[in-house]
């Protein structure tokens, strides 16, 4: 099918990101780094929630598993981050299979609640297994990533690396979406019974989507650990899971571009609105509500009013456009 869209998407991410990296101040570069890392996690969540329709409120637990994996392997065993990253990602994937097998028997609200429970237990274990995780003090002195002898120590060079990972992640996600595996996930989301009638192994598709989402989460977690070089249980609390979900819904569920836009917006928005102080949360709530009401398919569903058809019907075509992403 279409190989062009994923490639194009990757290239656009790289060019836009490189351009921004030249313009922004160090502080904003740091935010952009965090946004790019979140975007990788949210593209992952899109597999489970956007494509396969599995509501996960425990995504941060998998981000945390990846981050703690990298942190422990590098600080305790002295591994290179380059070796620790893939091992932590693989470990998270195995963890996701083990946890997914019982958990994915649940549906809807029950699955949401169970994944929330998973995230809470993850935080509990991370905060209380002090000998291993350092408890609430976290793990510090995580080594920085080195590329060809150069440490990615400053925000700008780290951003370039993170952008490359994001571009590859987004392109791979686009290819999966356009493949029969992506179709199978969407079929399971839209109608589980119909999917199993057409010969799809529903359980396997759900596990695959869940594990894919955890792999992306672990990559994001590993990048986060190497970027901050210090992690603590608070970085992976269930509140972060809800933020990831909000990013995906605001950006546009089922859309890779939406996942990236949502991650960018919800990372920068709190900084732009810092003057609101604690009123920010109230604003944020109203903002998300407004998106849900006026842009039900998220930011990617936005069309300029000029493109409204004369009879005022814009919702249909907009929805088609949003769900048509990645298709020729």
């Amino acid at each position, binding site marked *: 099918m279409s190989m062009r869209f994923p490639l194009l998407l990757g290239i656009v991410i790289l060019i836009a990101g490189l351009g921004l990296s030249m313009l922004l101040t160090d502080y904003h570069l740091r935010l952009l780094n965090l946004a790019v890392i979140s975007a990788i996690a949210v593209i992952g969540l899109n597999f489970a929630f956007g494509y396969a329709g599995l509501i996960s409120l425990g995504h941060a637990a998998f981000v945390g598993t990846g981050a703690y994996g990298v942190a422990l392997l590098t600080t305790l065993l002295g591994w290179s981050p380059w070796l620790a990253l893939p091992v932590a990602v693989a470990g998270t994937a195995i963890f996701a299979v083990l946890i997914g097998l019982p958990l994915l028997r649940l549906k809807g609200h029950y699955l949401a609640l169970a994944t929330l429970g998973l995230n809470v237990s993850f935080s509990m274990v991370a905060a209380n297994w002090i000998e291993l995780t350092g408890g609430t003090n976290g793990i510090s002195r995580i080594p920085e990533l080195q590329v060809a002898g150069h440490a990615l120590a400053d925000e700008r060079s780290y951003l370039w690396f993170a952008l490359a990972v994001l571009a590859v992640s987004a392109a791979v996600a686009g290819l999966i979406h356009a493949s029969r595996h992506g179709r199978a996930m969407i079929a399971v989301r839209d109608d589980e019974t119909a999917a199993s009638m057409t010969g799809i*192994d529903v359980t396997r598709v759900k596990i695959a989507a869940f594990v894919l989402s955890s792999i992306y989460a672990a990559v994001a977690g590993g990048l986060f650990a190497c970027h901050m070089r210090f992690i603590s249980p608070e970085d992976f609390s269930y509140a972060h899971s809800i933020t990831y979900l909000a990013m995906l819904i605001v950006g546009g569920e089922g859309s890779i571009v939406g996942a990236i836009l949502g991650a960018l917006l919800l990372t920068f928005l709190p900084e732009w609105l810092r003057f609101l102080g604690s009123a920010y949360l109230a604003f944020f709530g109203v903002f998300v509500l407004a998106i849900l009401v006026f842009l039900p398919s998220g930011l990617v569903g936005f069309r300029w009013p000029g493109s409204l058809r004369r009879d005022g019907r814009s919702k249909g075509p907009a929805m088609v456009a949003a769900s048509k992403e990645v298709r020729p």
Partner: protein
Amino acid sequence: MLACKDLTVAYGDIVALQSVTLEVGRGETVALIGANGAGKTTLLHAISGLNPVQSGDIMFEGTSVARLASDRRVALGIAQAPEGRRIIPGLTVEENLALATVSWRRWRQPISGDLARVFDLFPRLKERRRQLGWSLSGGEQQMLAIGRALMARPRLLLLDEPSLGLAPRLAEEVYERVRQIADSGLTILVVEQNTVLALSVADRAYVLETGRIVLHGTADDLKQNTRVREAYLGR
């Protein structure tokens, strides 16, 4: 080819099917008729694996499939066009069709031949191949549901109320295609409330009432049967 023996299916305490015995021979078109709530769809779902079987057995080409998951049964050659069509709304017509090839398709194996066959049968689908499922009309969705079942390369095609919710002319058009599929030699088991339509394509038929088979015979015999005429044909 298909044999249900003493099949009993219950939803909790409510018995929906009671020792149903039914046979479909190779190349035959068999209709299952009955009123609302008689258990027609329940029987079809038991055959395709969506309903668990309490007792009895389902044999397909000599092997028992009663305990297999539905995706395994599709792989063996039992495909279903479900009641209410159940098109995947977020996928295009072509993607809906491609979906059903998972049971036999190896990596990168082309499906254009299978697609062409379905598009020959239903030219309307070809025109709308890039449209999303939800944007199709009822008749087109029914054609897509049948086409999707055919994409699984079935040896037994299960059709659940293909005329449901269609204007009479469209229903007849759908049944014309069903006849065409039957003429090509595929074995078909069709569940239908519209007895006239069902008997027009079937070789044989079973009549289901409150979970039991009360009558069976050739379509021509049933058309003459007083009980069938009074209860289902309204004459």
